[in-house]
């Protein structure tokens, strides 16, 4: 199979090939999902290196457990669940994210890649930075399930049924989580609107 044909394979076809022993095609899934996996991990950690490690760990787990994938859900739902679980384990292990450390790293210039858009004017930039920081703090203070539902829907663009599948819960519960998260964020960010 040539390179172009491989790139056109659906996720489930790639998984089937991996399960038959052609592990090398897994790299297509890495290319396909690396950005999304990294972004989710970053939303949980706010640290580039840790986000990198966690998301790469998710790929590693997906690869080693690929034979356990039974196709009952789509690959990306299964993979998202892996990433989210790894991130939640991380937050439980680590406790609250230390925001001060992120600020210090950013000030010293040796910190992680900054994800806030800094192309705006200095005042706007400062306000945007403060709003982002406030939003992050509000997200951090949320219960894990609310935050996960919000990040998957708002940041990752997953549909509510997909979020429910990733979180192994009902769509109704996801709607409630989402509503609570959005209401809390709006409340904390009103002064920046």
């Amino acid at each position, binding site marked *: 199979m040539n390179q172009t044909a491989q790139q056109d394979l659906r996720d489930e076809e790639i998984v089937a090939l991996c399960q038959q022993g052609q*592990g090398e095609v*897994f*790299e297509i899934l*890495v*290319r396909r999902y*690396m*950005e999304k996996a*990294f*972004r989710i991990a*970053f939303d949980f950690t706010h640290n580039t290196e840790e986000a*990198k490690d966690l998301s*790469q760990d998710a*790929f*590693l787990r997906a*690869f*080693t457990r690929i034979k356990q994938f039974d196709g009952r859900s789509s690959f990306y739902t299964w993979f998202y669940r892996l990433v989210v679980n790894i991130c939640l384990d991380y937050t439980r292990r680590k406790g609250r994210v230390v925001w001060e450390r992120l600020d210090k790293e950013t000030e010293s210039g040796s910190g992680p*890649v*900054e*994800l*806030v*858009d*800094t192309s705006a004017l200095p005042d706007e930039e400062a306000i*945007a930075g403060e*709003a*982002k920081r406030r*939003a992050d703090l509000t997200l951090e203070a949320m219960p894990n399930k609310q935050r996960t539902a919000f990040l998957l*829907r*708002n*940041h990752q*663009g997953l*549909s*509510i049924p997909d979020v429910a599948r990733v979180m192994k819960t009902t769509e109704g519960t996801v*709607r*409630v989580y*989402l*509503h609570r998260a*959005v*209401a809390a*964020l*709006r409340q904390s*960010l*009103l*002064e*920046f*609107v």
Partner: protein
Amino acid sequence: MARNDILPTACKSFEEDLVLFYYGDDSAADHRRVEVHLKECAPCRGFVEDLRKLLPQMAKPKELPPKFWDDYYAETMAKLTVPQERNNWWKDLFVPMRAWMLPAFGTAAVTALAIGLVIGKGNWRPFSEPREKIPQEILADTNQLEFFRSLDLIESLSSLESPDGTKVKPMSDHQS
């Protein structure tokens, strides 16, 4: 930053529907119902407007340079290669044997068990069971047991009788 004091509160009964309305996750009927409500309710309109301003901003990360993703990809593939090798080296040793290994080991185990049961039947003594303790003086006398047995035999010879009731004479008498 003057919004705090004039916080427009959306109708509580509509708030969840407004969030779903914003994301487009509501049903067509709910969508129409919310649209009708929004025409009449300024606080709810304000709520949806706020979501439109705030939420996309939060979800918008700065683009990372292509080099970041190249490095990320290379690192991930390097990490993936290591467990692959680690998982495979010992499996390769067993691949030629895999087809016959299971029945062969199974048969060998059953045979060994059967032989063990046949040969060891009735002779099995657990290793941990303590030997029966025999007093030392008796143990010392066991060597003389044969001697006492022979004496008993000699004594009983004298009491042997012939089938007709007469006593059998000892051998020494015959000779004399």
